[in-house]
């Protein structure tokens, strides 16, 4: 199967390293800007929700971090799959980079979800909420991936074995998601975000979307930076890495 040229370019570490070097300042700066604007807008300007009063403002971070966690898992699985099938070393590096970030964001989503649950239902851990249940299972999948990766000392074998787990995991994620959703509909417990989400007026919606963009850019910055570090680690004895190291890049 003839792969397009840019695909091969994406496979060469020096090219991707420099691409990341050029892109990350933009991603980082824009991301922080959006997050700052979104937070100020969400906390100060947006009106309180008539039902949940002020605590609904967590809606500006909980769904976003959960979304980043899921996105990270999908990126990890796709990169791992590409790495496994076409033996692209860099794809494995991308999968390895996405995993810890995804785990951290899913953990953050769980915490904010639990905190949001306290005033809403009076308990920190609402087993009934399908989102919380799904995020917990997603976090376990991440921890399983990281544990399996940690168990291997040979990097190449670790890449290929965890790639299989990631692909199997991503096939199961939608199944777990909808079975938890279906299970919740049986027990009729309330959810943070009912299907339509709390009725959001336009000035509530704008910061909501800004935060989504902000978190996505922040995630991309983290991913690229971590990918760079992974490239340096993997291409240790390459000449261009040595010049880089001697230059003493910070």
């Amino acid at each position, binding site marked *: 199967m003839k792969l397009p040229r840019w695909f091969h370019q994406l496979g060469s570490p020096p090219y991707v390293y420099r691409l990341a070097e050029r892109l990350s300042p933009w991603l980082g700066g824009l991301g922080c800007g959006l997050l700052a604007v979104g937070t100020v807008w969400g906390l100060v300007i947006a009106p309180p929700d008539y039902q949940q009063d002020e*605590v609904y403002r967590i809606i500006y971070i909980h769904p976003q971090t959960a979304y980043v966690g899921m996105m990270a898992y999908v990126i990890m699985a796709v990169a791992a799959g590409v790495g496994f099938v076409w033996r692209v070393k860099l794809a494995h590096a991308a999968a390895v980079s996405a995993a810890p970030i995804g785990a951290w*964001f899913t953990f953050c989503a769980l915490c904010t979800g639990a905190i949001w649950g306290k005033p809403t239902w009076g308990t920190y851990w609402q087993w009934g909420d399908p989102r919380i249940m799904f995020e917990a299972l997603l976090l376990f999948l991440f921890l399983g991936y990281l544990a399996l990766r940690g168990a291997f000392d040979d990097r190449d074998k670790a890449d290929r074995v965890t790639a299989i787990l990631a692909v199997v995991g991503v096939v199961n994620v939608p199944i777990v998601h909808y079975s938890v959703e279906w299970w919740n509909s049986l027990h009729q417990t309330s959810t943070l975000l009912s299907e339509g989400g709390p009725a959001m007026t336009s000035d509530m919606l704008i910061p909501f979307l800004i935060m989504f963009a902000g978190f996505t850019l922040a995630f991309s910055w983290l991913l690229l930076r971590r990918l760079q570090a992974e490239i340096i*680690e993997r291409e240790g004895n390459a000449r261009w890495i040595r010049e880089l190291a001697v230059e003493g890049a910070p």
Partner: protein
Amino acid sequence: MTEFLQMGGDGAYVWSAYGITLAVLIINVWLVRAKRRAALRRALELSTQTELPRKQPTVRRLQ
């Protein structure tokens, strides 16, 4: 100002949620920096190592 911080009694929850999110972001940034520094140091060590011995096996026919 305090009224803003109180947020109608829910202040504790909102701020702790935002606090955790900020903490997660900062931790991740710090982790990435540490990983990069360690990788660079490792690369530096490698660059000072002498060139490894060439190990080409000899292939010959028995007479």
